[in-house]
Every structure is written in structure tokens, then in C-alpha cells.
């Protein structure tokens, strides 16, 4: 556990909302100046005039209302007595507002001259745990698609400014993916919904509560609520589960349907079949697995539940940890996991079953019988045979229980069943695969939505409460939900009352009769289980900014109980759960401050898998149509199912594989595109299942032939989601319930027109340059002549007077470097999956602006850290290698000597300091930087930040003005803060207490930072590792960042050693 943030302060112990012990922050003062109005006005201005029925007229009337003072009076948060805003609330809020403009936001107006007559607003009553100017850290959590991950959130004077993984959480272990980190941005998102409304009229919360209580009481009395339906996210929250139980007690005939766009339908189906209907999850242990076979499983992608897997896997890619594992991946599109593969087989998604069956057949045991059943569903392509045979041989040669086969969630239950069977046959059950009770007990997925749709169609529903994210957008088009909710298409719509709660006015909210703005999870108390069962307590960091209502409080309204705030409900629930345990108070405090409840891991599943029962899954499987193109739908690495669509950090994050920002595309392999006469950026008409859609085309090397892959989550049309609007196209429009993930029979025809994509990397070849080095471990140990030459170029000594004419500066402890640190970094390419969590971490930590699609299109993206993605080998079936590059802090920095004003200079400890306020912006440094890691503020990218958005800024980092160069600083603000703490305490900095933001969040620990003057530090050892080399070493820049050669562990049977060396790079 890397205890970067060891201060675990702020376990609140009092029990009223007023004593969250957190400063209450809203942009209330801004609200007085009619922020609501402005937002809605903005939305109205941007709303499409052709919008049927729910367009401008509606908003104009709302707008008129918003203009009047009575309205504002009426819509003030109207909590029942006892829940009203605390008396301290206002003052702190006020303080924050003004503070936001001055002290805490130091840096927001960087590079201006000295401001005059600035006001300082001190606290009237300083919260006891807070020292103004110092950060506080709180444990919390984030729930995504049925998994709650543990977070550690940094707050400055009451503003959460950074999200990191909770080091005490068993899955996160300090790491956090892009989604968890970017979650923070959505908290301050000015386009979040803020008006509770019935139809077109704003309503007070009290009115809603009365309405719901009445409705619930009436329904209970009439028929036990048989006409009431709830559509919610999977119930991994114990508190919500308890509320459900209690609602069902009151309304026994009501029904809860669980749906989240990222379903576990098929894997669930498989495990339920194996375990006699029990809800069971498979938990993998990659640390034990010597040979891993992924059947279209992207288990290294950055989804929160994969963070632990990624770390385990990466530890097995480091030759210093023992023999490398070997990863085989069979998949259609290039995924993050596919990029890490030693051997990747490009197959259509529908052919994965054949691969699975062939492997199952070969390993024998229960697998063979299932494989037999699969034989007539799919037959292995002859050119896949050699690959499969090699995999089988490898799996069988490995020690029993030391292999692992993982099936992807897009694959049908049959593939999952086969994978489980193969694991059983290889003796992996109980070693690399463990079956535990699932943290989600109920059925979930599209089947649930289908059941709901049937009920509504049949007129069996009159009240529908939707708490799951935006089902109208996220379900396939043919589900029929939208048509049922839309009065224009459903004549009986009047009989149905729909209540929807969400963070945004989105596609679903426009059909809701009641819309309740939800409290952001960082604004309220909640809990949730991670996929391994561990319960995390998510505490709020801030009072609701936009009057959002917590889901738990909304559900509690159906119970007609005296009002209890979410905090009270949560605490009461857990007090009830720990009945009989002494001193609940202390327990609670430790849970909240640790963020996780110990001992809540899921129990092992009952019994052993019964593969006989699973054969029905295989025999019942209907293979999709072959012929034409196979269409594939995948979740997006950035916006997931679309719920992060309004998150500009994620929209601008380059896709790990395509490096595309602000877009999705129909991805094709080069051959297929050639066959169809399509070029990147062309428009094509997609014809599939009777539906047509025009899509822009992009070509990715390594994509399976005759398949087209489209990411979901784009083409959002939420009313107020300004960022997400009109980005990409909505692939759900052609998706069907029958084949939600892949199907055959699609065609693409070139049509007129083109689409401008914004990519951050357009050239995918290394042009034989020794940049991201990648070779089999055996090649590194016994290098060929070509490899020796390459290694010579990247790591040979630069002799003074021969290759180097500049005398070395003395960075040892001494007069020129009194404190004796020599900062350096090491990046292990063997560990890096390219997940991009570090990019978001850097963006959040360093106040990096988002520039928008147009600016990315002209190569002006601002991310300090980029992940270079190269393909090696043939264009049709290349290998992929990721290389994170940020400023390497050259000791002989080419940027520095060309700066005319000393704006970029070296510190005594070897940092390449960038002094924003001295920079005049000649851009010479960037021109002369061979790594091109410098970023220039071509425009004033932070100019239009609202007061609320400014609260996100890290006050320790200057917000850069236009015309100023910027770049990675090795997180110098962290160094200086830790240094000052250490210096005040008269000690040296401990390696553990100082981590850069990218290093801190990296799930695979690919990034290491520290002082190279200390031989004990990990970074020093990595710099001396035989794999360490310096990027563009031959230029004599002497970088402080070392990259470690990525080593592969190819199966000699598949990859003869000789040609590998030829591709290594140099000539």
C-alpha cells in the first residue's frame, strides 16, 4: 500500500447534516444572480427548434418563471424541519464564494499583475479539523454498473479537488481509473440539472414528497402496489437493498427491475446455470496464472473492478518478479488487453465460440462434453488452428491450477460456460478462479427492461420510478421503451406516471412526468459493494451544489416514514447490521475514515459448478448470421455507456487504441476498408437489421477483417448536456435486444461527404526508430546484432569529449544541491496497458484545461502526459506498444538554452522548471523539444470557467494564462509541499510520502518517481535495471525519466525468434 495520503482525517461523528464537519459549499450566491436562469436560457438557446413538443416553448415558459423572484423563493431547497441547511451553511458558503475568487484559488488569474483591494473572508468558526491552506483527505466511494470502488478524495477549504483510489480498499489499492477520477468534474458540472419539476412546472421537494406518500399509500391500500415499477441500477448497495426490501414490504406487489447499460447478463446466466440458480461471481487471481487465455475478455481495461486484476497481471510482466506469464487473446477489435497480449488472434466475435470450443475439446474433462455441444454451432477456421493448437499445448504444459481462461462479457453464456469448464479441466477452480456469492443478488440486464416493457405495453403499470441511468438512451433502439414513454407514440401514455431522477436533464428526463435532480454521489452519503463484496462507505465532500436529492431519500419517500437524511438512514442501517457489537460509534468512525468495512468480502459460493447443467446454454445458443460484415458494439473507454458524455476530461481523453477524441467511429480493418473502398474519415451508410445510419469510418490496424466495431455512448442528445451534445453518433440506434453485442449481416456503403476526426496521434509507425522498445525477453538476454545495435543507441555511455561536449552539472548533495535530492522517474513499458488513468490524474492535479474538438483537430491538446501508441509489424495484424511520454526533465535540456527570458530553467535538484509567469510565449522551447511534450496556451482556454467550475482547481498549481507554455513538472507542487513538511520536521523526504499524480493512480504501478541520489529507492533501482533506457538517448539530452523495455514472452511455437529482431527498430 503506498500511503501517499496518510492523513485520514475527517471522520464525522455527529449525526445531523449540519455537522458533516464539512464546510457547506454551494454556488448559492451565484444562484441569486440567477444561475438557474442562465443555465436554462443557455440550454434553450442550444436546444433544437425542431425538437418535438419539448423544445423551446417549454423552456421559454420555464425561463420566464425563473426570472421572477417568487420562483426563486419557491424553489429554495425545502427540506422538512430538521433537515434545513445548517445555520453555519450560509457563512461558509459565502466564505467559499469569496475565497474562491481570491485566496484558495490562488493561481486562477495567473500571470496578472498585483490585484488591488482584494478581500479576505475568514471562517467565522473554523472547522476543528481544518487548517486553512492545508488539504484534507476523505475516504469515499463511487458506484458504477454494480461495483463500488473505494476512493480517497482531497479537499481544499471544503472543495473536493482531486480523486484518488483508496489505498485501503482491496480492489483499488490506491489506484483509480479515468472514470473515477473524472467523476469529480461532473460534480461541478454547470449543466447538471437543478430544478425539481412536475411536467413543465417547478415544484418544491415538499410537494413531491406529499405526492409520493399519497401515491404509495393509495397503491398499498388498493392492490399492494402491483401497478408500481422501479427501474434501477443493480443493487450492490446494502442501504438501497434495505430500502427496496422495506418498500416491497409496504408494496408487496410492486416490482424492481435492475438495469445498467453495462450488464453482466451472459456471465450471470452462465454462473447461475452452473450453480443451480445462485447468484455467483467468478473472481480471478492473475497473480497465480502462468498462462492466460482471454476469449474476447478485456480484463485490463480501466473499469473500476479491473484495477486489481490489472495490478496482479502487471506484476507478472516484470521479469524481476520471476518468470513472465503469457497472455493469449482472441478478439475482434484491438482492446487494451489485446495490446498486452503475447499472442493475439484476430477473430470475429462470433468465432470466439469456436476457439473456446476447440480449446475445450482439447483440454478434455467436462469441457470436452460442452465442446461437443458447441461443435455444430461454430467451427474453427482452419487458419486459426495453429494458434489454437499452440495455446492448447501451452495450457496443458503448464502446471495444473496455474492457468486461467477468461471469457468476455460481450460473449454469449455458452462461451462463459466453456471457459468455466476449461478452467475446471485445467484445475484452475479454487486457484486462479474462485466462485463467490455475487454482490448483486437480483437478476439484471436487458431481460429486465424487456419484462418492464411488456408490463407497460399490457397496461399493467401506472407508476414507473426510474433511478437507473438514462434507459431511454442506453437500451437498444428496438426495446421499445422510448416509444412507450413518449406521448407522441403511446396513446395510453396518460395512464402512466413516470418519475426519473438523474444528474442531468437527459434523453430520459424529457419523457418524465416528474424529474428530480439527483444529488451527486459526492454530495451525499451512500454505500456499495465492490464485485468482491467489500462494502465501501461513500461520504459526501460538499453540500449539494444544485439542490440534488439523494436516491436513498427519494426511495424513502415511498415509505411515509418521518424524514431522515441519507446520513441518518445509512448510519441507522449499519447500526442495525452491527447489532451486538460493542461501541458502534468507534466502528462507524473507523469505517467512514477507512472507507471500507472490513470483513465484508463475499462468501464462497455454495457447491461446485455443475457443467452438465450448463450444456443447455451451449445447445440453446443460436449463432448469429454469417456473411456480410459482423457488427460489434462495445463500451467506450472514455464515456462508458454515455453516462460520462458530459465529462469534458473524458471526451478529450484520447481513446487508448485509436487516439481519437470527441468522437466515435465505425472501426474497420485496413483490408476490409480497402475492400469497401473506404478511407479514414469517409462517411458510410450502415445497413443492419433493416435499420440504416450514416456513420464516419476510421481504420485501425489489427482489427479483425469483415467486422465493424462501434462504441456506444455517443450521439447524446440530452437537453442540457452541453458537452455531450452532438458528439459522435448513437450506435444504439441500430442495436437490437436480440444481439446487443455482435451480429452478422451488416453492410457499409460509401456515401458522399467526410467527417473530420480529432486525433492526438495520427502516425502509428515508429519508422524503425528505437522509441518504444519492445522485444521478447529472450532477445534481451541474448541480443542479436540488430538488437545490440539498438541497445547501443539507447543506452550506451556518452563519453565526454566524444559524444558530449558539455561538462556534467553536480547534482550530488553539496553546495550546488544542499538538500541532496535528484528527482527522476522510471516508466515500465512492460507494465503499461495504456489505460490512460494517469492522463486524467495529471489533468486533475495540474489544472489542465480542456480545449475542445476543434483545437484538438489542430493539434493543440493540452494534456501534459500523453500515451504514445505504436503498432509494429504488418498493418493488418500488428503488435501494439504503449509508451507514456511526459517531460523527461533532460539534464541537458534543449528547451532551456533557447528560452530568451529564463522562463524554463533547471532547479538545483534537476527539475526542468517551467516558470509560467516569466514566459512570453516564443514557443522556441517547444520547437526544440525532441519529445514534443510542451503544451502552449494558444487561446485562453480557462476563460469561460464559471465560479462553480473554478472550485475544482487545485490551488497549489497556477492556472495558466493564454500565451504561456506549460508542461509536466514532475508534480513539483507535491514535491514542495512534502519537502516543506519534511523540512519543518527536520527530516528527509520518505520515498513513500511523495508520489506524482500519475504514479499514484497507475493501476499497474508502471510509473515510479523518487530521488536518484538514494540507491535504496525503487526509481534508482529501475534506472539501473538492464531494461532501462533513455528515450532519444543518442541526442545527449540525458533525460531523468527512464523507460523500461517492454518484454514479451512469446510462445516459440508461434513466433520463430529470428524475424522478431528485425522489427525492433534500428538500422
Amino acid at each position, binding site marked *: 500500500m503506498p500511503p501517499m495520503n496518510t492523513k485520514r482525517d475527517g471522520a464525522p461523528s455527529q449525526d445531523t447534516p449540519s455537522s458533516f464537519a464539512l464546510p457547506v459549499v454551494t454556488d448559492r450566491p451565484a444562484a441569486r444572480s440567477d444561475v438557474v436562469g442562465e443555465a436554462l436560457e443557455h440550454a434553450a438557446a442550444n436546444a433544437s427548434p425542431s425538437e418535438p413538443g419539448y423544445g423551446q416553448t417549454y423552456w421559454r415558459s420555464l425561463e420566464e418563471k425563473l426570472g421572477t423572484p417568487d420562483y426563486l423563493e419557491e424553489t429554495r431547497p425545502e427540506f422538512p424541519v430538521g433537515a434545513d441547511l445548517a445555520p453555519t451553511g450560509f457563512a461558509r458558503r459565502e466564505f467559499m464564494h469569496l475565497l474562491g475568487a481570491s485566496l484558495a484559488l490562488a493561481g486562477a488569474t495567473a500571470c496578472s499583475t498585483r490585484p488591488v483591494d482584494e478581500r479576505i473572508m475568514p471562517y467565522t468558526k473554523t472547522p476543528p479539523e481544518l487548517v486553512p491552506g492545508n488539504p484534507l483527505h476523505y475516504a469515499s466511494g463511487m458506484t458504477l454498473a454494480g461495483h463500488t470502488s473505494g476512493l480517497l478524495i482531497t479537499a481544499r477549504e471544503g472543495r473536493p479537488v482531486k480523486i484518488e483510489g483508496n489505498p485501503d480498499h482491496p480492489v483499488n489499492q490506491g489506484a483509480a481509473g479515468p472514470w473515477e477520477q473524472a467523476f469529480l468534474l461532473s460534480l461541478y458540472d454547470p449543466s447538471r440539472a437543478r430544478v425539481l419539476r412536475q411536467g413543465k412546472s417547478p415544484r418544491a421537494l415538499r410537494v413531491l414528497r406529499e405526492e409520493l406518500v399519497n401515491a404509495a399509500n393509495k397503491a398499498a391500500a388498493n392492490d399492494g402496489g402491483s401497478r408500481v415499477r422501479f427501474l434501477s441500477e443493480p443493487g450492490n448497495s446494502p442501504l438501497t437493498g434495505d430500502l427496496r426490501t422495506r418498500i416491497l414490504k409496504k408494496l408487496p406487489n410492486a416490482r424492481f427491475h435492475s438495469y445498467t447499460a453495462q450488464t453482466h447478463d451472459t456471465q450471470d446466466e452462465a454462473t447461475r446455470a452452473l450453480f443451480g440458480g445462485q447468484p455467483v461471481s467468478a473472481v480471478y487471481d492473475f497473480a497465480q496464472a502462468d498462462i492466460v487465455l482471454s476469449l474476447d475478455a478485456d480484463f485490463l481495461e480501466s473499469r473500476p473492478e479491473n484495477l486489481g486484476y490489472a495490478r496482479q497481471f502487471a506484476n507478472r510482466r516484470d521479469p524481476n518478479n520471476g518468470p513472465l506469464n503469457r497472455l493469449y487473446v482472441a478478439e475482434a477489435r484491438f482492446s487494451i488487453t489485446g495490446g498486452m497480449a503475447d499472442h493475439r488472434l484476430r477473430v470475429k466475435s462470433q468465432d470466439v465460440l469456436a476457439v473456446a470450443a476447440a480449446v475445450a475439446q482439447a483440454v478434455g474433462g467436462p469441457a470436452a462434453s460442452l465442446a461437443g455441444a458447441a461443435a455444430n454451432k461454430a467451427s474453427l477456421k482452419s487458419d486459426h488452428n495453429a494458434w489454437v493448437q499452440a495455446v492448447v499445448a501451452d495450457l496443458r504444459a503448464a502446471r495444473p491450477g496455474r492457468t486461467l481462461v477468461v471469457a468476455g462479457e460481450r460473449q454469449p453464456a455458452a462461451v462463459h460456460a466453456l471457459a468455466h469448464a476449461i478452467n475446471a479441466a485445467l484445475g484452475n477452480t479454487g486457484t486462479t478462479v474462485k466462485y463467490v456469492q455475487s454482490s448483486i443478488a437480483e437478476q439484471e440486464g436487458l431481460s429486465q427492461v424487456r419484462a418492464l416493457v411488456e408490463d407497460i405495453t399490457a397496461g399493467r403499470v401506472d407508476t414507473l420510478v426510474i433511478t437507473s441511468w438514462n434507459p431511454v438512451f442506453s437500451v437498444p433502439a428496438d426495446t421499445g421503451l422510448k416509444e412507450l414513454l413518449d406521448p407522441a407514440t403511446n396513446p395510453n401514455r396518460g395512464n402512466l406516471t413516470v418519475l426519473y431522477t438523474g444528474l442531468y436533464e437527459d434523453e430520459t428526463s424529457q419523457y418524465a412526468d416528474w424529474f428530480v435532480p439527483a444529488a451527486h454521489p459526492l454530495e451525499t452519503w451512500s454505500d456499495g459493494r465492490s464485485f468482491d463484496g467489500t462494502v465501501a462507505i461513500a461520504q459526501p465532500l460538499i453540500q449539494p451544489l444544485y439542490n440534488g436529492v439523494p436516491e436513498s431519500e427519494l426511495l424513502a419517500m415511498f415509505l411515509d416514514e418521518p424524514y431522515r437524511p441519507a446520513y441518518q438512514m445509512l448510519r441507522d442501517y449499519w447500526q442495525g447490521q452491527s447489532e451486538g457489537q460493542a461501541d458502534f460509534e468507534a466502528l462507524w468512525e473507523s469505517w467512514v475514515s477507512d472507507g471500507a468495512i472490513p470483513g465484508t468480502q463475499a462468501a464462497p459460493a455454495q457447491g461446485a459448478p455443475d457443467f452438465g447443467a450448463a450444456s443447455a446454454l451451449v445447445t440453446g445458443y443460436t449463432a448469429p448470421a454469417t456473411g456480410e460484415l459482423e457488427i460489434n458494439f462495445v463500451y467506450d473507454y472514455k464515456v462508458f455507456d454515455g453516462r460520462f458524455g458530459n465529462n469534458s476530461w473524458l471526451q478529450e481523453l484520447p481513446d487508448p487504441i485509436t487516439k481519437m477524441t470527441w468522437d466515435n467511429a465505425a472501426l474497420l480493418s485496413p483490408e476490409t476498408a480497402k475492400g469497401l473502398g473506404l478511407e479514414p474519415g469517409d462517411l458510410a451508410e450502415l445497413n443492419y437489421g433493416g435499420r440504416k445510419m450514416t456513420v464516419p469510418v476510421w481504420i485501425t490496424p489489427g482489427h479483425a477483417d469483415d467486422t465493424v466495431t462501434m462504441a456506444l455512448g455517443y450521439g447524446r442528445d440530452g437537453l442540457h448536456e452541453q458537452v455531450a451534445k452532438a458528439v459522435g453518433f448513437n450506435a444504439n440506434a441500430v442495436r437490437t435486444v436480440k444481439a446487443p453485442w455482435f451480429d452478422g449481416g451488416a453492410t457499409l456503403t460509401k456515401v458522399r461527404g467526410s467527417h473530420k476526426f480529432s486525433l492526438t496521434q495520427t502516425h502509428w509507425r515508429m519508422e524503425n526508430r528505437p522509441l518504444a522498445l519492445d522485444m521478447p525477453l529472450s532477445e534481451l538476454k541474448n541480443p542479436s546484432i540488430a538488437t545490440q545495435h539498438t541497445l547501443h543507441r539507447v543506452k550506451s555511455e556518452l563519453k565526454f569529449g566524444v559524444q558530449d561536449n558539455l561538462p556534467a552539472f553536480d547534482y550530488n548533495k553539496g553546495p550546488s544541491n544542499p538538500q541532496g535530492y535528484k528527482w527522476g522517474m522510471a516508466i515500465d513499458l512492460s507494465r503499461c496497458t495504456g489505460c490512460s488513468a494517469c492522463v486524467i490524474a495529471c489533468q486533475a492535479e495540474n489544472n489542465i484545461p480542456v480545449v475542445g474538438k476543434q483545437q484538438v483537430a489542430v493539434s493543440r491538446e493540452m494534456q501534459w502526459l500523453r500515451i504514445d501508441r505504436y503498432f509494429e509489424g504488418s498493418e493488418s495484424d500488428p503488435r501494439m506498444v504503449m509508451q507514456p511520454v511526459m517531460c523527461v526533465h533532460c539534464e541537458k535540456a534543449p528547451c532551456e538554452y533557447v528560452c*530568451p527570458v529564463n522562463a524554463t530553467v533547471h532547479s538545483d535538484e534537476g527539475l526542468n522548471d517551467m516558470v509560467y509567469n516569466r514566459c512570453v510565449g516564443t514557443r522556441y522551447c517547444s520547437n*526544440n523539444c525532441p519529445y514534443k511534450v510542451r503544451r502552449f496556451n494558444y487561446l485562453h482556454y480557462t476563460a469561460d470557467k464559471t465560479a462553480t467550475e473554478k472550485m475544482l482547481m487545485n490551488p497549489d498549481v497556477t492556472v495558466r494564462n493564454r500565451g504561456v507554455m506549460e508542461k509536466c513538472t514532475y508534480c513539483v507542487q507535491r514535491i514542495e509541499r512534502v519537502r516543506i513538511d519534511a523540512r519543518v520536521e527536520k527530516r528527509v523526504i520518505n520515498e513513500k510520502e511523495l508520489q506524482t499524480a500519475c504514479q499514484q493512480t497507475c493501476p499497474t504501478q508502471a510509473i515510479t518517481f523518487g530521488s536518484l541520489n538514494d540507491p535504496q529507492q525503487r526509481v534508482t533501482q529501475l534506472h539501473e535495471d538492464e531494461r532501462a533506457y533513455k528515450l532519444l538517448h543518442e541526442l545527449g539530452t540525458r533525460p531523468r525519466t527512464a523507460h523500461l523495455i517492454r518484454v514479451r514472452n512469446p510462445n516459440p511455437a508461434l513466433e520463430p525468434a529470428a524475424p522478431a529482431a528485425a522489427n525492433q527498430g534500428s538500422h
Partner: protein
Amino acid sequence: MAETASTTYHDPLEPRPLVAPHHDDATLNETLLDHVWRKPGKGWFMLFGLSLSALGLLVIGVTYTLARGIGVWGNNQPVGWAFDIINFVWWVGIGHAGTLISAILLLFQQKWRTSINRFAEAMTLFAVMCAGLFPLLHTGRPWFAFWLFPYPSTLGAWPQFRSPLVWDVFAISTYLTVSALFWFVGLIPDLAALRDSSKTKLQRTIYGLFALGWRGSGRHWHNYKIAYLLLAGLSTPLVVSVHTIVSFDFAVSLLPGWHATIFPPYFVAGAVFSGFAMVITLIIPARKYLGLRDVITDRHLENMNKVILATGLLVSYGYLMEHFVAWYSQNQYELWTFYVNRATGPYAGVYWLMIACNVITPNIFWFKKCRTNIAIMWVASIAVNIGMWCERFIIIVTSLSQDFLPSSWGIYTPTWVDWSIYIGTLGLFGTLFLLFLKFVPAVAISEVKELQLELKHAAHQHGSDDALAGAGTLTHGAH
């Protein structure tokens, strides 16, 4: 553009005259000052209007840039410099010809310089003014550009003298200052002549103010002659040093395509090349408009074409050497830049245009027919100007757009603001130049008179018209 009758009667083998023989001091004075007193013609006003509208574009472009930021240009992450520095180098290069004509030819006592030196110096001055705009504008925060000057600030910080940009600041400001001084010192006697032949009190006062009270005193001439010669002597190494320093902007960096030791001579040659071309481009219409065919004769033009040929060959040699060194070093990055990126990359069209204009075009001047045909040389000179602009584009944009890491390669596309600022500087140049033509003697009158006298002496001594042409061998100073 046919030639005037006054020169066509010469035997083609005979050297052409430097000053048409039918002038004395008074008529020279009249001819050369005529355009100052005359009301400008329609053509002048038309050109002036055109220049002013282009200047308007500059104002719009610059205002917009200052208001929004450099982002309104096409510059981006790999291509940090583009039109801004291309135009800077291009204008500085053009400026250099003026100084060279004026100073180097003076030092080498090339008599034919006298008719065109004022003209060329003015061109230098205005071109350097246009050039000087760009280093200022191209900074992200031009309001802090004064930080490049060493002054005792409250920050306690200084400029960084290892940076070629600081060298540039010193070089360009020195160059502008010295050029202005050189030009002004040369102008003083002519301003006095203007003052003394002025017809109104206002004219007399204004020209009198600028003439500083010059009376043509022998004691003044005594110091003046040596001062002017010394300024010329200083300007010569200065002009070489300025373009050397401009080339250091590139040569000192480590970018493939920039990092080359041949840059200083190659840049200086290129500057002279483009500068002489610009002189031709401007002087052909100007001498027609000003009626100066008698003092700016065909011989001047032919000599300039010879210089263009020579420098064009030098520039071609520079290209050749760049490619040769890239091949000889077998440096992977250099090879890519010179043999893949330039010739076949995204900007290959510009590259081949550059080759056509800079390598092929000057070779037509091997032929006397081309050297003496006004139409051909005018078109060729414009081609060279375009070619030299392309050269800077190739050096700057192409090298930047594809450097070491293929991951960060990018494409540069100019925006309307880029174009309007470029065209705007042409307008600024044109405006200043037309004002110069209107208000200041475009030919150094005192020098022409002196030359006239010398030529007459020589003719008298040799009793032959040959001497009119051979007068170049006469010394300039006292016998």
C-alpha cells in the same frame, strides 16, 4: 516593357552607360527631385490605395491576434513557428540586399551602385520594419516582450543570453538602427537639396528640420565622407552577422532540418538572392514611374541579374549540401527529413515549387537575353521571391511537423489571420515605400552628381565615351 530610345542606340557590345550623358548638375537635380514636387499621379494613388487596404488587413489581423491570442493562427503543437517566423526571415532576407548594394558595393567602389543604393536602403529599412513586427507578434504575450531586453527589473531576472532569440533582438535592433543611420546620413545632403529647392515655407521648414542645417560645408564633407564610408564598412559585416544570427535561430537547435552548420552562409546567400530579386521587382516599375531610366539603366539591371545568378547558385549549393550531409551522416532523423518528408511528405508541393523557383529559375540568367529582357527578369524576380518564401516554409514548417517522435507529428494549415498578416506586411511595406517615393529623393542625388563629375573628368581625360562605362575603376574619394 520596351526599352527607351535613349539607350537603344548603343552598340550591344559596348558597355551600357551608368548615367545617361546629357545631364549636368542642375538638370540632374531637377530630374531627380521632380517627383517630390510633382503631384503624384493616378498610378501612385492607385498603388497607395491598394497598399493602404492591405495595411488595413494587417491592422485587422494584428488586432484580432492580440485580442484572442496566437491561437487564431494555424500554429500548433509540433509546428510552434510558421508564418510568423517564415515572414520574419523572408523580410529580413529581403532587407539585406539593400545594405549589401549600398555598403558592399560602396566598399568595392562599384560605381553602378549610386543610382540604386538609396532605393535599396529604403527597401532594407521598410523590410526590416516589417520583419521586426513578427518576433514581437509571434510571442504569446507580446506585452511582456520587453523582458527580452536587459534592464534592471524588480524581478531581479535577466534575459538568457544563450538563446538565439536574444541574439535576434540585438541583431535586429542593431541592424534597424544602423540601417536607419546609414540611410539618414546618406539622405542629409539630399534633404538639404530638397530644402533649398523647395517652393513653400512649410516644405522648407520640414525638409530644413530633417536636413539638420546641412550646408554642404567642405569641413562637414570632410568628416562626412569618412563617416559614410565607415558606416558602409560597418554595415557589411553587420548584414552578414544579422542573417547569420537569424540562421542561428535554426542552426542552434537540434531539429533535423534545422541543425546544420551550413546555415549561416547559406542563409546569407539566400538573403542576398531574395533581396536582389526584390530590388528588381520594385525598381522596374519604379524607374518607369519616376522617369529614372537615365540613372537606373539597363546596365544596373543586368548587373543585379548576375548577382541573382551567383547567389542562386550558392543557395542551390546549400540545398545540395544539406542533402549530402544528411546522406553522409546516415542519421536516421536527417534522412527522413531530407529524403522522405521534404520530397514526398505533406508539403512536397511547396518543396518542389521552391526547387523550381530557386534552383532552376536563376539559371536563365546565364543567357544575356534573359538578363536584359525586362519582362523576363521581372517575372523571374517574382519567382525568386516566392521561392525564397517557400524555402523558409520548408525549413520551418516541414522540419517541425515531422521531427523525432512520430507520435507527435502534426500538420500545419494557415488560417485567414496568417494570410492577412502576411499580406498586411506587404501593404505596410508598400505604403512606406510609396511614401518614400513621394517625399524623399529615391536616388542619391549628391552621389549621382559626384559620379557625373567623375565620369566627365574621365571622359575628358580619355577623350572617349568608353570612360563613361569604365568609370567604375575610378576611386571614390579624393584623387
